[in-house]
Every structure is written in C-alpha cells, then in structure tokens.
C-alpha cells in the first residue's frame, strides 16, 4: 500500500467502481480499497442467504429456503433502463462482456386500490383499464407528439416551445386528465414527486423518450436486470479497473484521509500510507464531510409466490404514484426471482421502498406490502440519504451521494459523470473508451 497513486478510491459500491474504471481507463494509477471483505458496499448482493439473515439479526433460515448459496439478495433495488446511461457505460467500457441480463417482464401502476399493467403497445393500450376511450385518444396524440418532436427542430414542435413552457402547459395542450398525468409523470417519466409539473417540459419529454426508446430495445418492458443480482455491476467495473492496472484491496481498514494545507495527500491504514493526489469515496468514509438530507426505507420481502395480479410474472415493477396514497413521493415495488439466479428455486424477492416522510416509515410502505400476498420473511432498513458538503474542487476529495429511492440507475450515473467532471475538468468521453478498447495491440 505504501506507494504513490494518482487516485485512491474508497468503497466498492457501484459509483466508486464505475469511477475507478473510468480513471484507470484514462491512464490514472488507481488504488481501490474497501473496508468490507466483499465487493459492492451498499450496492452489494448478499450471499449466501444465511449472511442476509444474520445481517438483519434474524435466526438462520430453515431448510425451506433451499441452498443458501443460490441466493444473491440486493440491498438496494434498481433496474437498468435498456437505453439508459448505465447501459451506455457498460457497452462502451466493454464491461457488458462479463454480464448477462434479463428483461423485466412487466411494469404495473397502482390506481384506485388496484394495479394495472403499463401498456407497451397499441394493442395493450386499447384494452387497458387505465383510461377511458376518449382519454386514450388524447393520450395517444400526446405520445405521438413526444415521439415526433426533435429538440433542435422547432418545426416539429407544433407551436409548443418545450423549453419555455412547463409540463402543466403541455398536459393542457393535450387536455390530459389528472389520472393520465399521474400515470405519465410517475410510470413513464419516473418522477418520484410532482415538482416536475411546474418545470420546463423538455425534461419530462426527454424522460418519456428514454422510456420508449428503452422499451423499443427488448419489448417486454424498458427495464433490464442482471443475472446473479445487482452486485455483479460493481464487480464488473472493478474488473475493468483491474485490467487497466488498478490495484484492489478488500478487507482493509481506513483510518485517516491525510490532508495537507486543505488538500488531500494520502490515505492511511494502520501504519501504511498510500500517497495520492485525489480521493474518491462513498459518504460512509467521510462522516464529517456529508450531511443528512433525508431517509430511504427499503423492505426486502422473501416470497414463495409471484405477486398477485401480475400474470405470474417472474420479475416486475409496480409504481404507486404518491397521490394515489396521499403522499409526496412514490412507493416502488420491485420483484426478481429464481429465474435471475438470485433466489432458490420457487422463491421470489420483492422490495418495497420509498423516501421517508413521517416518523413511522414502516406504515408508509404498507400500501406496497399489501400488494404482495403472504410474506415469508421481511427485512426492513431505513438508511440516511447523505450528500457531500464538499465539492472536492479544493480538497480533491470527491464524495458520492447515497443511493436514492429511484427505481433505476439514471441518477446514479449522473452523479458519477458529475464527479468525474469535477475531478478531471473534462466530460467523460464515451467514444474515447470505445476507441481505446478497440485498439488492443501491444
């Protein structure tokens, strides 16, 4: 460890592993350390099942749960948007070669006490009970407009300036009712609350385009999920970093981030010091440089059946828009299962999560839990959502934010790209990596 590095990365969560990979690829000498003896930090998938039970201080699982090793249980539930930033990163860095994915089978939205499938084509849209007949026609016109509009070509805007008008104005243009707005903003644009309605329409349009472009890639839903769980993602990026010369040390205690004149100069573990010019880390490594801005509740539920009313789907997502249950932020339910090699045969893992709004978070997720049918085992965690108080520009310590309650990785990637830009002064050039990877002569 007593060496000189360009960068020391602390924690092997997904964000830190992507950063480590990006830095190594750009020629930096990287040391990547984790205090745990496993990869993934907060974004690990826990295996075997016994470790999950002991992590939550529950008595060991009985034999009904099958082989403990067949389980890989995510601590944070998320899916990948098939046309989203993380998929772009995976493809451009070649990390996709280490991974296999499955499409999530269906996406559902909660309306008036029951769930309905989010339609994925004309046929499903026509038979959907989400909207009345006339509303369906108006919604279709809206979608056609979104698909056809080009950001840089005002001729395609049909008289509506998406930059200088808010989303409320766009909804009015197509006379969409409150229920359709709810469905559009939360199940398609994937907003967690209703703030977007007052903001420039272009952001929502981009999100709806991302949704439909993602849907177009694989058909069943816009979401992908990796075989063996989300914990494979940080491992894949860590391997990328290692291939480009990054050094890995797990199970290594970090005692001090050594500063000199307000700037980082190294990282100390016991008597050893790794000298470095920059440090990248998750918020848990720098408690004095982060502030708590909220909390996220996540409840892992082990089921021996699919979620009722989803056509026995082996994977699914259900969005409960905030207004449907008188909240300010949506509740998310995700389901994965033995088909993804994350549970023993016949088993399902559901996760209910949301941003905490009250002093009693467990009651907040009840509408989600009620959708699941009988739950065999439940593990609840409430985590602080931490944000850095230091942008790193002077200290050269770059801190990621905690993982938020969103159901996909878009905000995760934006944080990573932002940190990369702050640290290197340049945007991460996706094309450059691709070029370098294609150039593998000695």
């Amino acid at each position, binding site marked *: 460890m007593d060496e000189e590095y360009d960068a020391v990365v602390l924690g092997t969560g997904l964000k830190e592993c992507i950063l480590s990979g990006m830095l190594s690829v750009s*020629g930096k*000498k990287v040391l990547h350390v984790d205090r745990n003896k496993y*990869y993934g930090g907060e974004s690990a998938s826990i*295996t075997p099942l016994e470790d999950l039970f002991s992590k939550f201080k529950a008595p060991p699982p009985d034999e009904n749960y099958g082989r403990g090793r067949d389980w890989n249980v995510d601590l944070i539930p998320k899916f990948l948007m*098939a046309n989203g930033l993380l*998929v*772009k990163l*995976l*493809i*451009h860095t*070649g990390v*996709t*070669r*280490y*991974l*296999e*994915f*499955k499409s999530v089978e269906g996406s559902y939205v909660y309306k008036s006490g029951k769930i309905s499938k989010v339609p994925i084509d004309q046929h499903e849209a026509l038979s959907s009970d989400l909207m009345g007949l006339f509303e369906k026609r108006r919604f279709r016109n809206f979608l056609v407009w979104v698909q056809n509009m080009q950001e840089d070509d005002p001729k395609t805007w049909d008289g509506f300036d998406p930059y200088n008008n808010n989303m409320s104005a766009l909804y009015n243009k197509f006379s969409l009712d409150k229920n359709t707005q709810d469905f559009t903003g939360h199940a398609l644009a994937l907003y967690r609350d209703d703030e977007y309605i007052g903001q420039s329409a272009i952001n929502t349009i981009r999100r709806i385009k991302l949704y439909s472009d993602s849907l*177009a*890639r*694989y058909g069943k839903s816009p979401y*992908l999920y*990796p*075989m*063996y769980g989300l914990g*494979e993602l940080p*491992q*894949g990026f*860590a*391997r990328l970093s*290692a*291939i*480009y*010369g990054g*050094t*890995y*040390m*797990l*199970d*290594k205690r970090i005692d001090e981030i050594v500063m000199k004149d307000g700037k980082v100069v190294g990282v100390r573990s016991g008597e050893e010091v790794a000298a470095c010019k920059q440090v990248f880390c998750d918020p848990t490594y720098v408690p004095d440089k982060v502030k708590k801005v909220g909390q996220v509740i996540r409840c892992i539920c082990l089921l021996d059946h699919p979620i009722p009313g989803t056509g026995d789907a082996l994977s699914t997502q259900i969005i409960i828009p905030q207004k449907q249950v008188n909240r300010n932020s949506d509740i998310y339910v995700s389901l994965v299962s033995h*088909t*993804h*090699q994350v549970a023993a045969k016949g088993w399902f893992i559901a996760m209910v999560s949301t941003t905490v709004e009250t002093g009693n978070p467990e009651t907040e997720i009840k509408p989600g839990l009620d959708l699941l049918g009988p739950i065999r085992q439940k593990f609840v965690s409430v985590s602080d959502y931490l944000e850095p108080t230091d942008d790193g520009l002077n200290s050269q310590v770059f801190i990621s934010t905690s993982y938020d309650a969103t159901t996909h990785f878009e905000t995760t990637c934006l944080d990573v790209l932002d940190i990369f830009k702050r640290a290197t002064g340049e945007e991460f050039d996706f094309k450059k990596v691709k070029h370098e990877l294609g150039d*593998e*002569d*000695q």
Partner: protein
Amino acid sequence: MRNIRRPIRFRTKDNMANRGTAQRPNGQTQGKICQFKLVLLGESAVGKSSLVLRFVKGQFHEYQESTIGAAFLTQTVCLDDTTVKFEIWDTAGQERYHSLAPMYYRGAQAAIVVYDITNQDTFVRATTWVKELQRQASPNIVIALAGNKADLANKRVVECDEAQAYADENGLLFMETSAKTAMNVNDIFLAIAKKLPKNEQAGNGGSSGQGRRLAEAEGQKATAGNCCK
C-alpha cells in the same frame, strides 16, 4: 495519448486472437463448436499470464509485466468432431490481495490452477485455490493443476510425485508445464478440452444459458437470445 504505465492488452476478438495460430493443435475439423469459460488461478508471478500468452499467441516474454490485462482471450482446440473454444479469463492482478470477485468464478466450466515448481509457497497456495474452487465454483468444474516453470528443474522444490498424488486425491488433471519452452502448454488445454462435457447445455461459453448479453454495437437493436447461439 499512450501511457507507458498502461498494461499490455490483447486483442479480444476471436479472429484476432487466433491470428496465425488458428489451426493449432489438431487442424480445423468440421462439426459442432462448444464454448467454455476457463479461469486461471494461482499466486502472483507463477506464470498464469505467460501460459495463456504461449497457448493463444505462441509467444513468451522473459520479463512479462506483472499484470497482463485482458477482458478475456479466446483460443480454440480441435478434437475429433468438436471444436472447443476457450474463453480464458485472467485474474487481472485481483488475486494479489485476495480480492478476486465472485463474478470471476461464476459459470466457469474449467480452471487451471498454476504454481511454480521452484517455490513451495505457491504450491501450498494452489491447494487453497483448489479448495476455493470446490467451494465457490460450479460442482462440475474441470480443474487442472499446472506445475509451471518446468524449464527450471535444477531449482525444483516441489516434487512431481507429490503434486501428482495431490492431484489424484482431488480428481484434478495434472501436468508440469513451461510457458518458456512451450512444454505441455497445448497439452494441458487439450486434456481439459477432452474432459469437458460436449452436450448441448454444456458448451455455452460461461454463460448461464439463460440471460442475454447486451449488444456491443450501439444504435443497433439488440438481438435477443444467447450470445453464442
């Protein structure tokens, strides 16, 4: 933008990796193609990367950089009616501080555990890698033990009989090899190829045969189905 510190990387495309050596060792035959994931394990500096470099490219470098990075290399071995294509994973140095990720073993159908015949510690370490494989990897994995640097027989400390006995007890293939002289290098891969099951489910290149890999070409629609079908 070349950086001297950047490790050497191989071409990973099959046609590139096979350039000039595609016919080895038995010549091309018609028939089915099976693809297998093979992982290398062993202490640093025992010659894991050199063995692969010899097998895939027919090369040897006396002062090989400590970490040869490659996503994975591919090389084919031709048996009577079957072409066995190995997808060979190197540790990328992640074994050095015991930081190999579980992903590395995932779906591996074959492993070569390498030690250095001039270094007793590397043999002891090899036995712990074998235990690790028995614990972590798929139960049907074919494991070969390679006593490398056989060209340095005058400095030998690990006896061939001792290693053979250990291999027999644990059901491992065993050969002493030399990446430098090429002794037994093709042979050990060939022996593994022979021992691997060649039925439909088996030869799917380290994939679980159930998920899909994402399309590499951006802007194109991804093709559904398995990567190797």
